[in-house]
């Protein structure tokens, strides 16, 4: 089981060899409220670290989704597009957003581990 890392924008990333699975954290979903719409990046497109990689909308408002690392989008989770409520139910497993073939593994170095993220989320309160 590989280590999961976290970004300040409340995304989680799990790396297996050079394939990264990315989603948003439970803390993020709690802040957002009921999610009713999600837009994912296009399969085959390239995304840049900290760049825009989709949108989630709750009953309240829209929020951008960022990618914590650069790479090529190789798969998107259509099941959360069809049923966005899944993101609230199981954000850190079944409701992953997209998978990237990553360009540069060192981009992960600046990300937080679970303990650091939990503290960050608690302190920032957002």
């Amino acid at each position: 089981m590989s280590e999961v890392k976290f970004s300040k924008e409340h995304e989680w990333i799990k790396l297996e060899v050079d394939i990264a699975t990315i989603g948003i954290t439970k803390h993020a979903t709690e802040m957002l409220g009921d999610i009713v719409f999600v837009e994912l990046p296009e399969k085959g497109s390239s995304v840049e670290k900290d760049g825009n990689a989709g949108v989630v909308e709750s009953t309240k408002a829209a929020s951008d989704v960022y990618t914590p690392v650069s790479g090529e989008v190789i798969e998107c989770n259509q099941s959360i597009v069809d049923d966005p409520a899944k993101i609230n139910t199981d954000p850190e497993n079944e409701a992953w957003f997209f998978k990237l073939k990553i360009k540069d593994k060192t981009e992960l170095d600046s990300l937080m581990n679970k303990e650091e993220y939990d503290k960050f989320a608690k302190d920032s309160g957002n």
Partner: protein
Amino acid sequence: MEIKKTALNLLHKKQGAKFVFFAGYEMPIQYSGGIIEEHKATREKAGIFDVSHMGQLFIKGENQLAADLEKIFPVDLKNILLNQSKYSFLMNEDAGIHDDLIITKIKDGFNIVLNAGCKNSDFKLLKELLNNKYEMNLRDDLSLIAIQGPKACEILEKIIPGISDLKFMNGNSFTYKGESIYITRSGYTGEDGFEISIKNEIAEIFVEKLLKEGGKLIGLGARDTLRLEAGLCLYGHDMDINKSPVEANLKWAMSKNRIAEGGFIGYQKIKSQLENGVKRIRVGIKPEGRIIAREKTTIFSEDNKSIGEITSGTFGPSVKAPVAMGYIDNSFSKTDTKVFLEIRGKKYPATISNLPFYKKSYVKGANK
């Protein structure tokens, strides 16, 4: 700025409310279950809303007051029955809407329920328009509680026997804990329901009782999705000082005899708009798929002309699809007309839809 709290603030906290600042008040946007759960609880059972931030204005007077108010509001107040309520507007000479409101004939005058964000300016303006002739009180010693949904009547009847006899848009005085309370059968969710005006001191104990009988507290978040599905306007968004009741598609709320006779503020403009038509009008809009069109989204025609703007939009939990309202060039306002919405730089298809999106289930005896 001082942040105001309603008499139910502590109860909201106990119930796990998340708060927002709204019109100077700290108000619950949602409780622990979330907006969709609260929305569904209202549609399926009964939702309790703290709307104490809204203005409760009392004006004392007899026949002359009704005549003077008719010079302001486009409704028939000479023939209004005791305890009957009417939806109306406070307008300027150009028929722009200062506020939308509910006016009720009570024993010694009129009660007017005003939007929270407008109540102080409305009060000043009305005082001026009435030349200071009448005793006017904007009561902050009273709370206003709404209970809405198919079980609202049953729940409230257990606490206040007799309320089930009230007809839609009618009220009466009742007694609770030895105090007089005033209840109207009305609301803003598209459901049958009641609004209860009650002394601050007994508001919390009253709401606790509603909760015990099966009601659920509902925040401003679900209040917004509920009213949007019901096709009802939110002041400051779907109507404002730059839009008239005709443009807001609320012609029905103006009494026929008043439109025929005139004699109220904004009449010339209303008359001309009714005779010549309006350039833009409020419509319902259904985006295709799940895309949500928020306020300020531009509406385009099939040939890519900018033809209007969304004034509110969200996901409708009961219609299970996104819903929106907006103002559109009148020549595109026909139901089922295809339009496009520009969201984050891309254009998405949508259709003009009849309102409401969600069918009302008001009790019989409705009078408009």
